[in-house]
């Protein structure tokens, strides 16, 4: 059997026509056609399984509670946005703001401290260097549940339960293993010539880090930044344990994930499901926008992070 190298135009014509001759001979061709229909069918099916439930849920925000309970396949009778307004009143806006407040601090701090530690461990030999490195990295192996009980009391002792700064510090600490691990391998690959040139120019270590090495590590920072942003944005267990109001005067500072689950419980009793669906839709839209704008970086960032 032979593989004929086709001109791009011819190949395209063959793809659309589907009756091309040559190619891999008759057997290969018919196998290809059957498989192509079959595989494409499965690909389309799975794509529908992803998209349709999400659209269906978003449509639910425009239905009435009776419609939602009546039949799943009903179509909204009117396009009113009041469920979104009620969802906002129920606190979705606040949960959003709370999550943003925490992430605005926790992500940059994670990147800063993670890079600092990774940089020193990657490029400065000192006694105990390997030990400290493995000490950091080993934390990624343990399930967070292992620490949950004492962590709760630790944060309580610092009087930081249900506070933004408490959660920020915990997020930074739990993002450390992975960030150090990833940035460590990144800093090691950077050329040392630039570093030496900066030393000769008389720059201090601190200055070299911030003005020379950190800018050079930008691609790595973007990957790990995306990874940490998504991870912290979607975190549920830590806030569920650490961000509960401590007294009747202590205000609610739920994260978005917590808020949605809370809303789910409430709406179960109050039977106002459109509000719940509207809340979820509101929570999904920024993710969708960010994802579609940066999908290449997000996919590359998340997957390369896993394989490192």
């Amino acid at each position, binding site marked *: 059997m032979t593989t004929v190298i086709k001109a791009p135009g011819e190949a395209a014509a063959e793809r659309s026509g589907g009756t091309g001759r040559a190619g891999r001979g008759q057997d290969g061709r018919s196998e290809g056609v059957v498989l192509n229909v079959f595989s494409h069918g499965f690909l389309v099916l799975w794509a529908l399984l992803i998209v349709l439930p999400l659209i269906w849920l978003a449509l639910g925000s425009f239905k009435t509670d009776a419609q939602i309970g009546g039949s799943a396949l009903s179509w909204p009778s009117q396009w009113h946005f009041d469920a979104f307004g009620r969802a906002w009143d129920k606190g979705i806006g606040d949960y959003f703001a709370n999550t943003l407040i925490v992430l605005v601090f926790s992500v940059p701090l994670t990147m800063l401290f*993670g890079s600092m*530690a990774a940089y020193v461990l990657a490029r400065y030999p000192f006694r105990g260097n390997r030990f400290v490195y493995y000490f950091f990295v080993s934390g990624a192996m343990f399930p967070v*549940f*292992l620490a949950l009980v004492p962590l709760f009391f630790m944060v309580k002792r610092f009087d930081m339960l249900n506070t933004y700064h408490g959660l920020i510090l915990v997020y930074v600490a739990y993002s450390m293993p992975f960030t150090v691990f990833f940035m460590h391998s990144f800093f090691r690959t950077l050329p040392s010539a630039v570093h030496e040139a900066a*030393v000769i120019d008389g720059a201090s270590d601190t200055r070299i880090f911030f003005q020379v090495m950190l800018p050079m590590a930008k691609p790595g920072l973007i990957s790990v930044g995306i990874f940490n942003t998504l991870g912290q944005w979607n975190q549920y267990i830590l806030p569920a344990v650490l961000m509960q109001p401590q007294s009747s005067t202590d205000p609610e500072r739920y994260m978005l994930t917590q808020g949605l689950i809370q809303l789910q419980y409430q709406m179960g009793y109050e039977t106002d499901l459109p509000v719940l669906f509207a809340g979820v839709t509101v929570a999904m839209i920024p993710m969708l926008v960010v994802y579609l704008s940066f999908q290449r970086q997000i996919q590359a960032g998340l997957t390369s992070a896993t394989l490192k």
Partner: protein
Amino acid sequence: MSHVAQGKGRNGFIAGFLLVPLALYLTFVIWPYVQTFGYSFTNWTGQSPTFDFVGLDNYALLLKDEVFRGALWHNLLLLVFVPVITILLALFFAFMVNAGGRGGAGGVAGVRGSAFYKIVYFFPQVLSLAILAVLFGAVYRSDQGGLLNGVLVKLGLVDPTEPVEWLNEPRLVLWCLLLVVVWHGVGFYLVLFSAAMQSVPKDIYEAALLDGAGRAQTFFKVTLPLLWDSVQTSAVYLGIAAMDMFVLVSTMTSGQFGGGPDHHSEVMATVLMRNFLYFGKSGYACAMGVVMLVLTMILSVVTLRATRRERIEF
């Protein structure tokens, strides 16, 4: 290591850069981990500052705890099925997206619209588990308002007067949860395997085609062995996810911290949280945490060992 000469103040610089990261990490991660081990030997309730050392009593109780044993069994079931199903689907889709097309100019090509599929399939990965819980709670609703029941009734597969109670049916609930995890994960591993497949030189595929290998043969004899490293890593990651399951189980199923109906969807994490936050049995909960840690570590080692193969350089 760098070639930077040792200079004055360098130790101060190193210490200064390590101080805050290490302090945070020690306080909030390492020390609680260590404490968990300690508390697991006590009858600490969490409320009172005092507690007694009870030796291995918590662990002995765990062995007899029917609920915990059931949860362990469910985790083990998930541990087998989540990685196997997710990886098989992801490999299949990745192969289709990258080499399932009719063959373009180079002889091997993905199907049309492969970039589109990657974008769609990966999207669930950026959604939080909380969103997934609400979404699938609605999909699995036990009346015709649920998407699954609604569609099945429309197709005439389910009697409209007796819709399936997906999440309240003891035999179904765990598999319903499993499907959510698969739905969530396939796209991620598709992209992961795609990246690995693209790093395999095209001529290897072409050589296989020239030798008359069919697509199935190409997949099993060429693609899979070359991707083995990524498959291994994926199995470990998915295994760790299957040991967790807390968010989905606790929010989608009935009972305090989920696990219902009648403990049929119970996993170790939900039992742990219930004992800690609801029953106030902190020491006992810590012992469960230790068991989860040990199992996770055994799992990682076993997976890496059992799937070890000769590494193929290309």
